[in-house]
């Protein structure tokens, strides 16, 4: 963080890579920060070197064309002990929601998941697939031939379900957009204009 000019860039890189589920390509960071790619790569290397120098327990590594945080190799015993001891590890809220969408709406494409969750689901879908909870079940017949995802037998096994038919129904619990709007906004009194038609609901 020596150069003040680069401080903001360094900090933004640190924040972005911290929350990423997958190695983040420098091109993406460059685009987000509106900086040249070579500068981003340069800063990442500088950051990585400074972590080494300070002897941190984590490192910034370049893996599979992107950057990610990972633990320093010599701390492996502690990490292993932690992973074995930590019985609380569960799917994070975001991952579980994505899995739930795939379970109830399968077969479903990445783009459809994205439109429901409102966030980029790539990282989460990949990690769910890596764990064997979901998999490719076909291709969309449309022009893009998008991959369609569905749940696996392992998923059923883990949840103790015999078949997908045993998933509890959810339809009646999902309120309409108007109700949600009212609840979320605390029944805020807005002018008589009707709330802009909720985009792409249902069907």
């Amino acid at each position, binding site marked *: 963080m020596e150069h003040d000019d680069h401080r*903001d860039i360094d900090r933004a890189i640190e*924040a972005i890579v*911290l*929350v*990423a589920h997958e190695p983040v390509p420098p091109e993406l960071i460059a685009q987000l920060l*509106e900086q040249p790619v070579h500068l981003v790569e340069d800063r990442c290397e500088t950051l990585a070197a400074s972590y080494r120098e300070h002897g941190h327990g984590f490192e910034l590594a370049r*893996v599979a064309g992107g950057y990610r*945080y*990972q*633990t320093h190799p010599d701390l*492996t015993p502690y*990490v*292993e002990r932690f*992973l*074995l001891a*930590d*019985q609380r*590890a*569960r*799917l994070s*809220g975001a991952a*579980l*929601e*994505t*899995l*739930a*969408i795939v379970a*109830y709406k399968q077969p479903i494409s990445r783009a459809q998941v994205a439109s*429901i969750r*409102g966030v980029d689901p790539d990282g989460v879908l990949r990690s769910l697939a890596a*764990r064997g*909870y979901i998999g490719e079940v076909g291709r969309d017949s449309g022009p893009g031939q998008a991959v369609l995802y569905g749940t696996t037998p392992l*998923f059923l096994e*883990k*949840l*103790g*379900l015999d078949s997908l038919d*045993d*998933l*509890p129904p*959810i339809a009646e*619990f*999902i309120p*309409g*957009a108007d109700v*949600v*709007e*009212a609840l*979320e*906004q*605390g*029944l*805020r*009194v*807005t*002018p008589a204009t009707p*709330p*802009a038609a*909720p985009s792409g*609901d249902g069907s």
Partner: protein
Amino acid sequence: MPIDVETPVYTGPFDLLLQLILSEEVDIHEVHLSRIVDAYLAEIERLQSLDLDVATEFLLIAATLVELKTRRLLPGRVEVDLDDELALWEERDLLLARLLECKTFKDVASVFHQLADEASRSFPRAVGADERFAALTPDLLEGTSVQRLRNAAIRALTPTPEPKVDLFHVTPIRLTVAEAVAELVDELPRVGRISFRRLTADLVERIEVIVQFLALLELFKQGYVDLDQAERFGDIDVTWIGGIGVDAHELAVDVYEG
């Protein structure tokens, strides 16, 4: 430390009464009861449904108020039955206690709002260990109940309301573009990107929308936002490109005639 939150929120008869007494600083006896009833009916109309519990509660309060009021207007209070008088005091103390409690939690809620807002600016890392530890990582679905999955599905599939830049804490009508610019400079970097419709969804007066639009044009002119309109008459996408830490005072803003 009472914090005044003047949210145009209707959450029940206590709210209405609180609002009438506190924000308008009026003696309830000097307000025509019909005014309270009118305000109440207007709220019900906006809500477009009649909640029986709310209505009953309101009637109870209205009745108490009517009684308090008539008591005051009636001549010859000497003859008033002492028991009745005491009962009335009790009613009134009860009402007062409930109003105080209501006010207490309204104030707490505004602090919760701040806390949640601050907390939501930090994103937690929930990435887990990398593939080197795949064999050791516990099965993440272990112990997840079907119920939990179902709740997640309901959460995910429940339509999210249009996100809004929350401006209810500011003076309702801004007439200067400079003020609107200052607000946008404060809000937009946090939101990053928002559509014009969402941005102005809270605005009541047409003039406010126009002021907001002029403010955006100003920011566009100075290179702080990007505006994008996919189609004629379509919604306008507003993207903050000014980075962080922009000081509104540094922006020279043309003065428009309000």
